[in-house]
């Protein structure tokens, strides 16, 4: 499997650790084999220009077309031209992060409502399954010859 995400000028990264954890940044220059220079752009992501170790960041699929050491202003324009923020928000990675955050912030009442909604959903599915006269099928792989067992 070849690598597809490279550390390069313009690579959009997600910061995993530190005071800016959870925010996006863009690599604008490479310092050495352990660290690089990133910038938000500050107005869009809230990350200021700083040197950060590769260990603290995760590369995303997105890149932006900029020259090395681009100004914050140029970077902002490049982000707007490439519509990077919307592309990120619509990615399943970003959606999963948002869902996790939402789940952690639910109140006791919210958790109750979620429980009721899940029950209603499974009731609808079960009804439909019975209607279609389907049964759930499981494959029993404990023996040498796998057996198909209907539940």
């Amino acid at each position: 499997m070849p690598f597809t995400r490279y550390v390069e000028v313009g690579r959009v990264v997600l910061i995993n650790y530190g005071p800016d954890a959870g925010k996006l940044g863009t690599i604008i220059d490479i310092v050495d084999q352990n660290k690089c220079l990133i910038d938000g752009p500050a107005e869009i992501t809230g990350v200021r220009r700083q040197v950060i170790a590769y260990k603290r960041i995760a590369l995303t699929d997105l890149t932006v077309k900029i020259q090395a050491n681009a100004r914050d202003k140029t970077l902002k324009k490049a982000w707007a031209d490439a519509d990077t923020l919307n592309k990120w928000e619509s990615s399943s990675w970003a959606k999963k992060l948002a869902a996790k955050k939402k789940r952690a912030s639910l109140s006791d009442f919210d958790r109750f409502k979620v429980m009721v909604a899940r029950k209603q959903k499974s009731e609808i599915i079960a009804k439909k399954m019975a209607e279609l006269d389907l049964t759930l099928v499981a494959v029993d792989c404990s023996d040498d010859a796998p057996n198909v067992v209907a539940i």
Partner: protein
Amino acid sequence: MQTPRYYPAEDLKPVKPVHKVKQNPPRVRASISPGTVLILLAGRFRGKRVVCLKALESGLLLVSGPYKINGVPLRRVNQAYVIATSTSVDISGVDVKSITDKYFSRTSDEKKEKEEEFFMGDAPKQAVVTDQRKADQQKVDAALLKAVAAVPMLEAYLAAQFTLSSSDKPHLMKF
């Protein structure tokens, strides 16, 4: 300095100021206010979700199920054994001014009967709910139930019990 003309025969100690005991209002957690839904953690009704009506002078919280929803009557509860949720009910229509700590104190008849019981042996006495309690419960709950019905799913929420399952981490849960 000249000795004054008059001085008392006995040395008088200077009068100490009388120490007035200052009774502060009871400290209630910031998360608890009238109308907050509480989760009871201990006692006969542990696990029940209940509406807080007010804080009494003793520091205990006055609480009601409402009785029709989960069987918790007008009751006093210690805030140390309670989780305050962020959900709250509009309590403006509920009148609990007449209910104080004195309302819940044991009557002298009950005390006397207890002494006789001690000498008689074990025979558990049936708890009698006075008509006054029932009347007050209905009066308070009438307004409370209206407020609860105004919020969708709140009645079912108050009827349900609070439990922890194996994947729950209470220190990370927001209430």
